[in-house]
């Protein structure tokens, strides 16, 4: 309950959060995640004691009588739809569709990128969605790739202030290429990638009037069938947005911004003191105390996004985005 209260206070949650201690309800409803160990293994990570008892990630939409009228479950907790996405899927299309989107296609592959909103604010955590739709006999390689092949990669650019998390492409299926005597990973069917980003801003760069902003989604991939491979593709999908002035930028939601900044800063090993100095420099005016840094690093370590090496220095544990 203390955990819920802390989370609720930090994020300004106004709806009830319920604690299922011992996973009793989760078990009764048949939602206990019994394949997590395999999922973790697919990411090369062991299962930990605190992972036991978690539900499969999903949502139920109930009507006025409490009848389930819609439901949605994700394959993994790594896929986290926004509240608006959930409502649109479960309640129905409100006619608005993705607020802004762009598409491209190559043999066997269609790529779409979109945002749920075309108005964004400085220091607001946003998310670009990218979806690959592959023909039935087509697969894309994820890292590591055989020599000379291009892995699936997605990156954002378009503004000096744009900061994005390293992209986590789903690991996909393992494929062993007999001729090469090695195992590689490929994805098939539909592949969804969510790219959280912020426009990291201070008083000088936040802007005091609305301005246009184009976020460019650079997508690279190479499609293959069992018998042939197409040429590597590199496309840039442009999302035209409007940045509205954010009067509250100086009261940045640290819980959203600090971890994003830290993940970038710990691409190389950093001591706690180095990290603190870098975070404060990056946030320009947001003075994070040593105790606050400890709290963030603990949470991020618990979430497996950063690790502490044997030498006591912090390092990102997320897979690097393909360059």
């Amino acid at each position, binding site marked *: 309950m203390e955990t819920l209260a802390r989370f609720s206070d930090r994020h300004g949650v106004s709806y009830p959060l319920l604690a299922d201690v011992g996973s009793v309800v989760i078990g009764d409803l048949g939602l206990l995640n019994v394949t997590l160990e395999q*999922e973790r293994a697919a990411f090369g990570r062991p299962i930990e004691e605190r992972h036991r008892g978690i539900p499969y990630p999903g949502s139920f939409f109930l009507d006025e009588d409490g009848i389930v009228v819609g439901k949605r479950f994700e394959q993994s907790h790594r896929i986290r739809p926004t509240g608006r996405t959930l409502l649109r899927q479960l309640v129905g299309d409100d006619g608005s569709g993705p607020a802004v989107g762009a598409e491209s296609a190559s043999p066997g592959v269609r790529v779409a990128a979109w945002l749920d909103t075309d108005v964004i604010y400085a220091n607001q955590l946003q998310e670009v969605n990218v979806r690959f739709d592959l023909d039935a006999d087509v697969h894309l390689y994820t890292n590591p790739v055989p020599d000379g092949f291009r892995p699936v990669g997605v990156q954002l650019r378009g503004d000096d202030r744009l900061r994005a998390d390293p992209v986590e492409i789903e690991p996909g299926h393992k494929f062993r290429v*007999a001729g090469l005597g090695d195992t590689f990973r490929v994805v098939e069917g539909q592949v969804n990638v969510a790219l959280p980003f912020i426009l990291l801003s201070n008083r000088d760069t936040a802007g005091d009037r609305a301005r246009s902003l184009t976020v460019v989604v650079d997508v690279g991939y190479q499609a293959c069938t069992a018998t042939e491979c197409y040429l590597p593709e590199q496309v840039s999908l442009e999302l035209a947005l409007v940045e509205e002035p954010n009067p509250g930028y100086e009261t940045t939601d640290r819980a959203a911004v600090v971890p994003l900044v830290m993940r970038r800063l710990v691409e190389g090993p950093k001591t706690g003191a180095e990290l603190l100095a870098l975070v404060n420099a990056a946030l320009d005016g947001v003075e994070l105390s040593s105790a606050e840094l400890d709290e963030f690093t603990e949470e991020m370590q618990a979430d497996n996004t950063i690790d502490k090496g044997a030498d006591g220095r912090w390092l990102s544990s997320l897979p690097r985005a393909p360059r």
Partner: protein
Amino acid sequence: MADFTELPIPEVDAENLGPVVGQRFPDVVLPSQTGSALDLHEHRNGRKALVVFHRSADW
């Protein structure tokens, strides 16, 4: 021609997890962040609801 051997990651039968569409969502009474127990259907009080299952508010 390459010969592929597939080693799949777990598939989840998402549609059949938990209460199915058309069924009344079971009664749930659990402690909330306020410290007191909350009855889902009582709290709804005849309103629609979105019930989200997440792993933890802690990690």
